[in-house]
């Protein structure tokens, strides 16, 4: 059964700056059930602006193939808001904008998609592991990191994002079992958008919800409406709180739909019905959330228009900064691979360390 919004106190220590959004909106929100909804909304707006600009940059050839997350903003923003600033987020490629919520410059995030190593960042600076390409392989990292922090006396929690497709990989199972055996402070957050490239969820697993897997690991499992930021916030906050209190890992499934293509190169019309997509597009999270905020008098339509315009122009500016980023140099191919590189580097056909024959 799907769970909707439920009340839970956020213990987020994140500063508005950390969210990387400028303040705005006329009303103030003392926090419905402790959630700063305006802040949450602004994070979603920022993600939307980032995503739409990235898609444009790809069309203009300024970046290569890009995996849009249009519609998954509620899951990502609510999760970022539900954790503490010191908690780490372990990301898949579709969460490539999450570090931006924690201060990474959008142009540096986009640089990844133009194949630029200057997109690489220090995870500890944003408490975000780099986006992971091989499905589910970052889940064991979250477990190891969480156990490691606990061993050092920390009380941080790790949240690991993964998809419905990734759930079929052995690493997802090994990570969840290992985490439950070690009672690691980890939240496994599955964005079930019902598609893995062209593979529908019905072909990925023989269950209605992946949260049913949790019981097999002795951990709580819940499915929430991934388009309802308050519901996601509540479920993640509860799981994070549980983990921080030493009561072990949880599995949260955010049920949604991949409204966009798998990536810009993909043509979904080959494998799914546009009518179905249209249905889900109507339910997209931002418009729906804004309606609530309007109803509650926290915003007026002008705030909304302005906020989207502000966010869009900020991203437009970031796009120009991207174009201005210097290209990488050849030396960077071997840079940072090893702390102690062999004398012969850059290797390949270079005989560097080798003295010529007499």
């Amino acid at each position, binding site marked *: 059964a799907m769970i909707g919004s439920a009340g839970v106190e956020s213990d987020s220590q994140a500063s508005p700056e950390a969210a990387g959004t400028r303040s705005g909106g006329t009303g103030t929100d003392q926090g419905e059930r402790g959630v700063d909804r305006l802040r949450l909304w602004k994070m979603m707006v920022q993600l939307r602006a980032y995503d739409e600009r990235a898609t444009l940059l790809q069309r203009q050839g300024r970046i290569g193939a890009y995996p849009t997350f249009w519609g998954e903003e509620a899951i990502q923003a609510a999760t970022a808001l539900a954790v503490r600033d010191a908690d780490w987020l372990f990301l898949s490629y579709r969460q490539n904008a999450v570090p931006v919520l924690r201060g990474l410059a959008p142009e540096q995030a986009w640089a990844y998609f133009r194949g630029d190593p200057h997109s690489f960042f220090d995870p500890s600076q944003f408490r975000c592991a780099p986006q992971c390409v091989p499905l589910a392989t970052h889940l064991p990292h979250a477990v190891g990191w969480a156990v490691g922090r606990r061993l050092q006396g920390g009380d941080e929690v790790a949240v690991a994002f993964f998809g419905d497709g990734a759930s079929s990989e052995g690493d997802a199972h090994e990570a969840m079992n290992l985490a439950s055996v070690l009672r690691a402070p980890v939240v496994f957050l599955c964005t079930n958008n019902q598609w893995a490239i062209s593979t529908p969820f019905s072909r990925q697993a023989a269950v209605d919800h992946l949260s049913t897997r949790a019981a097999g690991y002795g951990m709580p499992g819940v499915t929430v409406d991934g388009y309802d930021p308050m519901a996601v916030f509540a479920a993640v906050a509860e799981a994070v709180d549980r983990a921080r209190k030493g009561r072990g890992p949880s599995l949260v499934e955010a049920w949604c739909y991949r409204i966009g293509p798998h990536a810009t190169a993909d043509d979904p019309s080959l494998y799914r019905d546009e009518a179905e997509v249209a249905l889900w597009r109507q339910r997209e999270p931002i418009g729906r959330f804004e309606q609530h905020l309007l109803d509650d008098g926290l915003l007026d339509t002008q705030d909304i228009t302005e906020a989207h315009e502000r966010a869009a122009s900020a991203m437009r500016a970031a796009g120009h900064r991207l174009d201005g980023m210097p290209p990488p140099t050849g030396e960077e*191919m071997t840079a940072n691979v090893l702390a102690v590189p062999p004398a012969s580097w850059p290797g390949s056909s270079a005989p560097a360390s080798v003295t010529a024959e007499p």
Partner: protein
Amino acid sequence: MAGIVCSGIRDRRAMTTVVAEKGDAESVTLVQAVDAALEAELAADPRVVLLGEDIGRIGGVFRATAGLQVRFGEDRVIDTPACEAGFVGAAVGMCLAGLRPVVELQFDSFSYPAFEQIVCHLARYRWRTAGATEMPAVLRIPYGGGTHAPELHSDSPEALFCHVPGLVVVTPSSPSDAYSMLRWAVRHPDPVIFMEPKRLYRSTRGTLPADPEPEGLPRACVVRPGKDVTIVSYGPSVPTCLEAAHVLAGRGTSAEVLDLRALWPLDEEAILTSVRRTRRCVVVHEAPRSCGVGAEVAAVIAQHAVFSLDGPVVRVAGLDAPFPMFMLESRYLPDPERVVVAVEEALR
């Protein structure tokens, strides 16, 4: 080694000048040749089944299996969940049931999660059952760089498989070879790691040879004859070497280009015959250098043709560093210029 007849002398122009409509059997891309070969084998043998991620509805991310599920059904062209170890392991089980599975691993790096199944089972099952069970599976692996792909979508893991006993490793460098070698691979009784140079999927065109009569093992093929130096290469680097040979010809150096085609077992005879004649050798591949196929080629020469050498065996390879983010890939990949420089070193 008995083997497929060499598809003959072929230089870069011959590989690229022909331009024609998509699907035209007279002129197809390498990826179309793969599709055609799979279609022919599915039609010829009901035991042939395909499995992998997204190979059905969309015909694979490269469209190498386009149209096959519509024609042969969901039971023979199977879309799997995202579980490489699971479906490569399933292919091993299908062999036990008498089928001939052809597995698509979506990209080079996604063969790594299936590594245990490949090494422990696919490669050893025939041996472990006293030869009673054949493992006629084919693992199709699109590999290599040059396609502006994301991280971990440009690796060249072929040498890893060459080092694993019990696997045959082959790779084509032209549409016609892709067609005949893949049809051969599907019929071959032993497990074949079929490395597909994804950079060449659409960059070159060729013709589909008449139905091959597969037998034995693929042999190396002289794609350009020469007398001053032997350039040994395979897969995606062959066009690069042909271009370098072209440049060298302009400078009065006659370079022979040998396309290995089979990486394990290696056609030692062909390598040694050519090198003993030219007395010079350069080996080219984009995979990392250490313990790569180039090392094996050089070692074979160092053991069996050392007295025939008038110069060092020079390797042109990828770096012993991760394949770079794609803005840098053109610097990582061997290019004609690096090959020319290496040949000059070998001629010193």
